[in-house]
């Protein structure tokens, strides 16, 4: 596997690179309950980071805040790049798969930064959409209604849209959820190509074996930060146990946070 070699090279470079996104004491609350709690740190430019933690740990919420979909309650998120250089893959369940669109229509949405709400999608943009559809292995299905696709094929379509966006920072929310192994491996190859091409990728995941195998960096969170660094150092039994214990306390009534 060629991409694993890339990781080693990249890792040394990544730790030396400046942060592309910096979290400054970020708290994001729903209804006063913090889902991301006093989180600080930076994602190095060109790094490939897995976001892990128990259910309800705030992984999706953090990604949404970085993507600009949710506001932060306190603290700030600073970008070293234009906000429009950020691409975001929502969880499949947040997308209406019964909506009457064709595969190519969905991928064309990736040109939004250029085409906006009203400008026309030109021939070269359309060509880029077709190339991306071929790259995710869906050649020939361009005009297929998305309602007829399997979950795995639909996830490939959303990856094609990400490819078209040409973003410097790519945020993936549970990208391999509910897809088969073949799809998961194909999509991971795309993620590794992004990484090799110098893009920064942050992905919320729950398969720890997968993280150990393919992700050089990891952020383990349980609303607050538990550990952040090289995956091997983060994914220790002690850290995972601490995350579990933090999660066990969430059902208790909460006092006002004085931090």
């Amino acid at each position, binding site marked *: 596997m060629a991409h694993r070699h890339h990781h080693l090279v990249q890792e040394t470079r990544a730790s030396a690179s400046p942060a592309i996104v910096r979290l400054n004491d970020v708290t994001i609350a729903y209804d006063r309950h913090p889902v991301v709690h006093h989180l600080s740190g930076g994602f190095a430019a060109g790094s490939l980071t897995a976001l892990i933690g128990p259910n309800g740990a705030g992984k999706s919420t953090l990604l949404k805040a970085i993507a*600009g979909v949710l506001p932060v309650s306190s603290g700030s998120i600073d970008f070293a790049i234009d906000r*429009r250089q950020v691409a975001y893959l*929502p969880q499949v369940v947040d997308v209406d798969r019964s*909506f009457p*669109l064709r595969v190519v229509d969905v991928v064309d949405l990736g040109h939004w930064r250029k085409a906006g709400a009203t400008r026309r999608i030109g021939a070269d943009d359309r060509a880029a959409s077709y190339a991306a559809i071929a790259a995710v292995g869906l050649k020939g299905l361009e005009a297929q209604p998305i309602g007829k696709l399997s979950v795995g094929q639909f996830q490939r379509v959303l990856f094609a849209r990400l490819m078209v966006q040409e973003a410097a920072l790519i945020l993936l929310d549970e990208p391999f959820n509910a897809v088969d192994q073949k799809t998961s491996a194909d999509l991971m190859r795309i993620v590794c190509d992004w990484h090799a091409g110098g893009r920064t990728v942050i992905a919320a995941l729950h398969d720890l074996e997968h993280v150990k195998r393919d992700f050089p960096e990891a952020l383990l969170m349980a609303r607050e930060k538990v550990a952040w660094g090289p995956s091997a150092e983060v994914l220790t039994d002690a850290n995972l146990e601490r995350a579990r214990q933090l999660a066990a306390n969430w059902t208790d009534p909460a006092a006002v946070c004085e931090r």
Partner: protein
Amino acid sequence: MLYDLLLQPLLDFAFMRRALVACLALSVSAGPIGVFLVLRRMSLMGDAMSHAILPGAAIGFLLAGLSLWAMSLGGLAAALLVALLAGGMSRLTPLKEDAALAGFYLISLALGVLLVSLKGSNVDLLHILFGTLLAVSDDALLLIAGTASLTVVVLAAIYRTLIAECFDPAFLRAVGGRGGLAHVLFLALVVVNMVAAMQALGTLMAVGLMMLPAAAARLWTISIGRMIAVAVLVAASSSVIGLLVSYHADLPSGPSVILAAGGVYLVSILAGANGGLLRRLLPQRHLEH
């Protein structure tokens, strides 16, 4: 024979021509609006809005009598107020938008009936709710044509945003799309069209010309563009059929138009190429892959 059936009523009577023009113009704007209401699962929104218009139109009526402009402005203000209040309350309270809307439009409707009964008679109320298609004034015709034109232009401008907002709202927000603005503009279009149709079809019947062709179109195609084309076509042909039937059979015109659209809707439910019932009842053998 065919001449007597189809052309004679239109050639002989100006009121028939005016009614037809009003209906055709409404078809052009109500068709696409209905399609988006169906796609956004807001099919009952139009109905709610049509009731919300009432107190505003009634206040206009109380102040200025049967004046088209006073009643239209009043209706517009009332419906926009209800839409804004419902949208706001769904954000500030645990009520979802449909419950908030139901609450406000019912208050609005009751208030409207109360206000109409203060001065007018039941006949006036019936005119507002069901229109007088065979007595469309010049002003009403202008209002309808202007509204239809405005609707087409605004819809073209927010078309892509509306689709993205509906399909994948988080993505749209992440790329900086103005989904909220498009939503508000769209709601405003719904209300403006309803108000424009008030004098001709009445607020209740206008919802029919919006929803029935759109729901029928959904059963024939899965392309949004084609759905809009089918909806406009269904609305326009229902207008022609409904008007002619009402003329020859001496039936009220507004309900005839809506029932014609209703007929197309029922046929579509049975025979629609995209999910019609007949396909289900006559199963075809499955394919190899």
